[in-house]
């Protein structure tokens, strides 16, 4: 009896130690995996901020923000970001004019009108649009949409904002449609049934009951799509051109912030030069804008949500 006791104790403590170790170390390792995401954000903010800071030592910040001429690679150099910002906005606005009405109408059709059988086919097909690589869209813009525009406006150039904007719009349709549809599907059936019982048509139910009830989700999907269009790179690099200019004519060649970053990184810009610094200053602008829009989208979705 006495001889058995210590042995039992050792096996017990052995087991406990194993459990002890795995339950001590594993959470720490897993925590580090999760903390990596925070590190990534810190990395992004730190990289952009520190390089942008040294960029603003040579370039006046007000010249950067309010200057109307962008030519950092050719003498005489000037660093006004407004042409890039204007180009980005033009492409984004065209894209949203395509994607928000079509996406919203698709969402209403899928959630209110379509029979389940149709919905089961159409929804995944629309989502394929979101999975197509952006370089493929770039090719599509250049080889299909631009010639199409050219047949209507014969004097349009090979590179123009309209073609890029339309194709970016097609790319973000599924973003608007599936997020809005999720919001509409979350509206309780009882609300719809109530309206039908009062004699409302399907259109009246969709527009006067479902859309208002799902409004926060719809707005947030539109803001997210807007932000996605601003950050889109390859379509605009391939199809919108490389001429930074302030214009309101969508048939002209422009340059967006993202396309500029690609252009510089493809050349042999020496590390530490002022041209190299522009990547970070423009990247910082891009990051701040998309970051704020994403925060706004999340805030809208939370703040104005109708609870049932």
């Amino acid at each position: 009896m006495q001889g058995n006791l210590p042995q039992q104790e050792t096996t017990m403590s052995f087991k406990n130690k194993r459990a002890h170790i795995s339950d001590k170390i594993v959470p720490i390792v897993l925590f580090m995996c999760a903390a990596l995401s925070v590190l990534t954000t810190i990395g992004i903010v730190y990289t952009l901020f520190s390089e942008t800071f040294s960029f603003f030592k040579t370039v006046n910040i007000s010249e950067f923000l309010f200057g109307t001429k962008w030519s950092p690679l050719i003498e005489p150099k000037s660093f006004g970001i407004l042409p890039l910002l204007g180009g980005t906005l033009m492409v984004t606005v065209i894209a949203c004019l395509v994607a928000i009405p079509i996406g919203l109408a698709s969402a209403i059709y899928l959630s209110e009108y379509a029979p389940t059988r149709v919905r089961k086919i159409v929804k995944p097909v629309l989502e394929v649009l979101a999975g197509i690589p952006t370089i493929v869209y770039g090719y599509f813009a250049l080889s299909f949409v631009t010639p199409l525009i050219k047949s209507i406006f014969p004097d349009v150039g090979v590179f123009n904002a309209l073609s890029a904007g339309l194709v970016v719009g097609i790319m973000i349709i599924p973003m608007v449609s599936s997020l809005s549809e999720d919001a509409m599907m979350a509206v309780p059936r009882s609300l719809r049934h109530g309206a039908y019982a009062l004699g409302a048509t399907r259109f009246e139910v969709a527009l006067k009951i479902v859309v208002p009830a799902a409004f926060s989700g719809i707005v947030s999907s539109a803001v997210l799509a807007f932000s996605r269009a601003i950050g889109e790179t390859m379509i605009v690099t391939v199809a919108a051109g490389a001429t930074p200019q302030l214009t309101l004519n969508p048939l002209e060649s422009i340059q967006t912030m993202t396309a500029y970053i690609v252009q510089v990184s493809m050349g042999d810009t020496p590390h530490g030069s002022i041209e190299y610094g522009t990547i970070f200053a423009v990247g910082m602008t891009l990051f701040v804008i998309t970051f704020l829009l994403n925060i706004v989208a999340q805030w809208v979705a939370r703040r104005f949500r109708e609870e049932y």
Partner: protein
Amino acid sequence: MSILQDANRKQISNRRKVDMTLHILFLIATSIGIIALMALLIQIMMDGLSRLNLELFTNYPSRMAAKAGMKSAIVGSIYMVLIMAPISFILGVGAAIYLEEYAKKSAFTRLIQLNISTLAGVPSIVYGILGLTIFVRGLALERSLLSGALTMTLLVLPIIIVSAQEAIRAVPKARRDASFALGATKWQTVSRSVLPSAISSILTGVILALSRAIGETAPLVMIGALTFVAFLPESIMDQFTVMPIQIFNWVSRPQLAFHELAAAGIIVLLALLIIMNISAVMLRNKYQKNV
């Protein structure tokens, strides 16, 4: 009485007409997206099928369109995914397990969660800037396969974490309770009961995230994946190119012959993505049958 009835009937028929018109309008709007997809696929097939031959797979890029192929790009894409897959799987699933099973409901946990959803919305080119600064210059990994794979890992991690979290959350609580009741520790429960039950869902998410990485161009252009690589990378420190970058290079050239090559390259890229997506869907279906 009859006047009232007529007005009423007229109003109802008007409302029906509005309903019908809008029904058709909504249907047209929905079909625009589908038509665009069809137009894209048909255009690419028409341009590219004639160049879709064996040489595309066996030749290196060339200045002459007739001889050019995308061997180095196909191999580069595959290598990149092979490096990325284990790193992003471990980091992503680890983070998801932490958030779902271990994390206490603290302000810091909420911060991590919010941070992950924000990261998913950061433009991919910004990840390219990050990779350029940290991996290419900071850690002096140069313009290597490893730099590219690590940059793309950071890009897809938010997607993997969110989908793995959903998969883990879908495992019934009863499974965990049963495991605890048998005396298992927390980690034993997670690794032997929760994970096996969620694994096919997790893998589906990982495959979809990797297919996103295969199609991504901008971050790799940033970290300097080359557009003209006439060799196969032999180590993770070698320079490389990937399919989207090779396609980008061909699209940027003015000659029509290179555009046909680009279209043929796109067919190969899309075929690879379709294969990955189908396998992801099959995995998901298998999982749904088991439950």
